[in-house]
């Protein structure tokens, strides 16, 4: 029967999300975790420069061009700003960069008391959706276990000529 159902009681962060899976992170199922980079830090705005510099380094390593690196830096900064300003006090911001062949997936999560994701009609959200190829934000879990997620995808631009 494998591990089905064990997640809800194992005391890990997964147990707090109110979702039942086969004991693995659903987002990681089809992607080798070997090249992933994870950053966990206090959910405070003073940490933004650190996450930005990680984003820049990863984009450089993935051979993104100057403008795409700048776009990813801005998008990651905006994502983390959104999560940090909605974080439960004293909580941890967990960020994960997944490198695929032609794209970088950035996914971040934080414990948040807010029952709904932030509005998509703000200037900040417009910036996020302009700078990325895909972005979504959602809430999972109940009450004290509520978690706010944000995921974005930035593709490597197709080189012309």
């Amino acid at each position, binding site marked *: 029967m494998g591990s089905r159902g064990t997640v809800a009681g194992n005391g890990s962060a997964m147990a707090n999300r109110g979702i039942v899976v086969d004991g693995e992170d659903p987002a990681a199922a089809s992607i080798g975790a070997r090249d992933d980079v994870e950053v966990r830090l206090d959910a*405070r*705005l*003073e940490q*933004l*420069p650190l996450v*930005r510099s990680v984003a820049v380094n990863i984009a450089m390593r993935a051979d993104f061009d*100057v*403008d795409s690196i*700048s*776009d990813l*830096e*801005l998008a990651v*900064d*905006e994502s983390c*700003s959104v999560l940090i*300003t909605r974080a439960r006090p004293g909580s941890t911001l967990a960020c994960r960069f997944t490198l695929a062949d032609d794209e970088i997936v950035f996914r971040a999560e934080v414990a948040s008391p807010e029952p709904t994701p932030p509005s998509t009609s703000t*200037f*900040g959200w*417009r*910036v*996020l959706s*302009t*700078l990325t190829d895909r972005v979504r934000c959602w809430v999972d879990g109940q009450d004290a276990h509520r978690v706010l997620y944000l995921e974005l995808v930035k593709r490597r631009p197709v080189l012309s000529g």
Partner: protein
Amino acid sequence: MTEPEPTARAGIQRMVAITRTDVGRKDVVVIGVSGELDLLTTQELEKQLSSALAPPNRVVVVDLSEVRFLGSAALSALLSSAESAGSNGIEFKLVAADRATLRPMEVTGISSNLTIFGSVDEALAGVG
């Protein structure tokens, strides 16, 4: 926004420096910014902008040449400053010369609502 805590304040000072340069004209203000403008540090810029964008000032120049990162809070602050300057009859000019600042303004489309120059001298040329 509320006043940042002491640790946040130290963080702001490490990340950004905002200085007002005297150009010898009472009604012309040049604000030089260096460092990174994100959600935390933009609060500092907003303070300077709101005090500068008032009579008797007639021209306000914000020099972003030494800015290495321009986040959405800063983009939004620059855009609303341009609007408020316009409605108060104040000329609001930006100086930006490299990709770190030009790219965010271009890709978000706000550069069309801003007046951008390559240097402070260019921004001040023709200011009577």
